[in-house]
C-alpha cells in the first residue's frame, strides 16, 4: 500500500531542485543537457531567474524557453538572436554560461567522465561519447551535475576512467591556478542535492529528498562525503512550479526519464 504524496513525481522534485542551481545566476547562458536539466533551466528562467539566457538547442537564443514536448516542425519560437555553435564557443570561452550535464562517472574531486570506460586510452573497454566540450566548459564556466541514478558506478571510488573535466584535484591543478578558480555548483541526484563546499571542496550533502536517509546516500557513493549535522529535506515543487513544468512538457516526457517514474515523496511508500 502506498500513502505517499501523489502530488509530484521524483522527476518533478529533481527538476525544481536542479532549477535552484540557476538561482541568482543573472545573464548567463543556461544549458541543460538532457530533458530534466533543460526543464530545470527553463523553470528557473520562467520563475526566479528571468535574466537567464537559453537557446533552442540548435542555433537561436530564445527570449522564453521552448516547450520540451508537443512542438511541431517549423513552429514559431521566441528567438532573439542567432546562436550557432561557433558563437556558443565564444560564449563558453568568455565564461558567461552555466551548464548542467549528466556525467557517466564523477569522482571525489568533481572530475567527470563521458568519454570511455575501462581499458586504456588506445583501447577502451567501452567507448562512449568522447570528451565533447567537457574540458573547455569546466575550465571556463560554472557547471552542475545531474545524476538520474545515484550509485557507486557513477560516484566512483578512484579517479574517473577518463578525466574529461577539471575538478578540485590538487595534483592536476594547472600552474597559476587556485582550486577556487574551478566552479562546480550543485549535484542533483535521485536521492539528494549536494555541492562541493565541504572541507577542501569535499562533496557535501545539502538536502535529502523526502524519505531518503544520509546512510543511503553514503552507501551509494564510492567516496566519503561531508554530512552536516543538520540536513533538510529537498523543497517540494510548488503548485506554481508544477504548472510551469506541465506547460513546458505537455506530453509528460519527464515521466519516462527515471526508471518506474517514482513518486517524489518516498517517506511512506511501503
Amino acid at each position, binding site marked *: 500500500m502506498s500513502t505517499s504524496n501523489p502530488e509530484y513525481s521524483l522527476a518533478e522534485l529533481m527538476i525544481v531542485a536542479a532549477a535552484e542551481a540557476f538561482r541568482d545566476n543573472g545573464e548567463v547562458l543556461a544549458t541543460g543537457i538532457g530533458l530534466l536539466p533543460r526543464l530545470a533551466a527553463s523553470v528557473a528562467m520562467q520563475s526566479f531567474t528571468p535574466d537567464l539566457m537559453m537557446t533552442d538547442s540548435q542555433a537561436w537564443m530564445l527570449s522564453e524557453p521552448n516547450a520540451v514536448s508537443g512542438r511541431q*516542425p517549423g513552429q514559431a519560437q521566441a528567438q532573439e538572436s542567432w546562436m550557432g555553435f561557433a558563437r556558443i564557443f565564444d560564449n563558453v*570561452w568568455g565564461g558567461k554560461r552555466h551548464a548542467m550535464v549528466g556525467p557517466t562517472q564523477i569522482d571525489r574531486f568533481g572530475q567527470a567522465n563521458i568519454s570511455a570506460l575501462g581499458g586504456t*586510452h588506445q583501447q577502451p573497454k567501452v567507448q562512449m561519447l568522447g*570528451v*565533447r566540450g567537457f574540458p573547455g566548459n569546466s575550465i*571556463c564556466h560554472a557547471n552542475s551535475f545531474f545524476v538520474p541514478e545515484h550509485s557507486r558506478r557513477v560516484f566512483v571510488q578512484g579517479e574517473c576512467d577518463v578525466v574529461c573535466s577539471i575538478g578540485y584535484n590538487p595534483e592536476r591543478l594547472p600552474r597559476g591556478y587556485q582550486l577556487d578558480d574551478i566552479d562546480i555548483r550543485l549535484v542533483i541526484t535521485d536521492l539528494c542535492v549536494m555541492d562541493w563546499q565541504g572541507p577542501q571542496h569535499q562533496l557535501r550533502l545539502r538536502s535529502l529528498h523526502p524519505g531518503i536517509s544520509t546512510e543511503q546516500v553514503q552507501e551509494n557513493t564510492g567516496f566519503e562525503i561531508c554530512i552536516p549535522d543538520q540536513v533538510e529535506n529537498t523543497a517540494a515543487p510548488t503548485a506554481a512550479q508544477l504548472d510551469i513544468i506541465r506547460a513546458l512538457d505537455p506530453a509528460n516526457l519527464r515521466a519516462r526519464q527515471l526508471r518506474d517514474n517514482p513518486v517524489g515523496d518516498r517517506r511512506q511508500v511501503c
Partner: protein
Amino acid sequence: MDKVLSARQAVAQIEDGMTIGIGGWGPRRKPMALIRELLRSDVKDLTLVSYGGADVGMLCAAGKVKKVVFAFVSLDFIPLEPWFRQARQQASIEVMEIDEGMMLLGLRAAAWKLPFIPTRLGLGTDVIRNNPDIALVDSPYDDKEWVAMPALNLDVALLHVDRADKRGVCQVKGPDLYMDDAFARAAQTTIVSCDELVDTEYFHAGEEARYVHWERSETTSVVPIAGGAHPSSCSPLYGFDVAHFKEYCALAKEQDFTAYLDKYVSGKTEQDYQQAVGGLDAIKALPLPVY
C-alpha cells in the same frame, strides 16, 4: 573559372595517408555522397578531423582510417556511433581526442598559418595526459601555463552546402554553419558538394549573398549532388533519415560492414544509392528534427 567536377573526379584528389577534414556536425550536413565515393576508392591510411557522425563511422568500418582527431562521434538521437565504437574497442585506429573548442582553435591556427593557439581548454584533464604531442607553454605576459593547441593542417576538406556556383561561391542557408568555414580555410584543397548548382546571378538578389560564409578562393572543387548529405540532414532542405541511421546502426551488431557496403555503396552510383533509399523526392521530404 569552372570548378565543377564529378564526385569521382573530386575524390581522386585524395591520396593515401592524407589528413581529411569533414564539415557538418554529428548527423547534420555531412558530405555523405563524397564519403560514399571515398568508400568506393582504394584510398587508405587517412587521418580524419571531424565533429563526427556516420562519416567517421563508415570510413572506420571500411578500414580507410589510420587516425581520428575527435571530440565526439555521435548521431545525436543515437548517442553512440556503433562503428566508431567498434573501431575504438578493437584498437584498430589511433586517436587524438580533444575538446570540441580545441578542434576549432586547431583549424583556425591552420587557417591563419599559426603553429598553435594558446588556450585554457584541456587544462587539468586527460586531454593533456593522453596527447603528449599537445604542449603546455609559458606565457610572456603572465605566470600561468597554457595549452598550445597545434594547427590542424588539412590536406583536404570535404563539405556539403545548399548551393554553389561553378566558381565556388557556396551558400549555407541552414540555421548553423557549424565550423565549415574553418575547415575550408584550414585545407589545401576544399571539395564542396552542393544540393543545387546555381548561376552567379543567384547571389545578386536580395539577401542571398549574406548566406555565403567564405570567399570562393577557399573552394577548390564543386560537386553538384542533390540530396548529397543523405542520410545526414541539410536544413532547411531536408532532415536526417532516422530509419536509415537505425538500419546502419543495427548492422553493427554483425560487426561486418560489407552488408551495408553491398546494399548501398559498392559498385553503385549515387543514383542507385538514392533509389535504394526511396528516391530523391523521399530524401527531400524527410522532416526537419524538432528540439
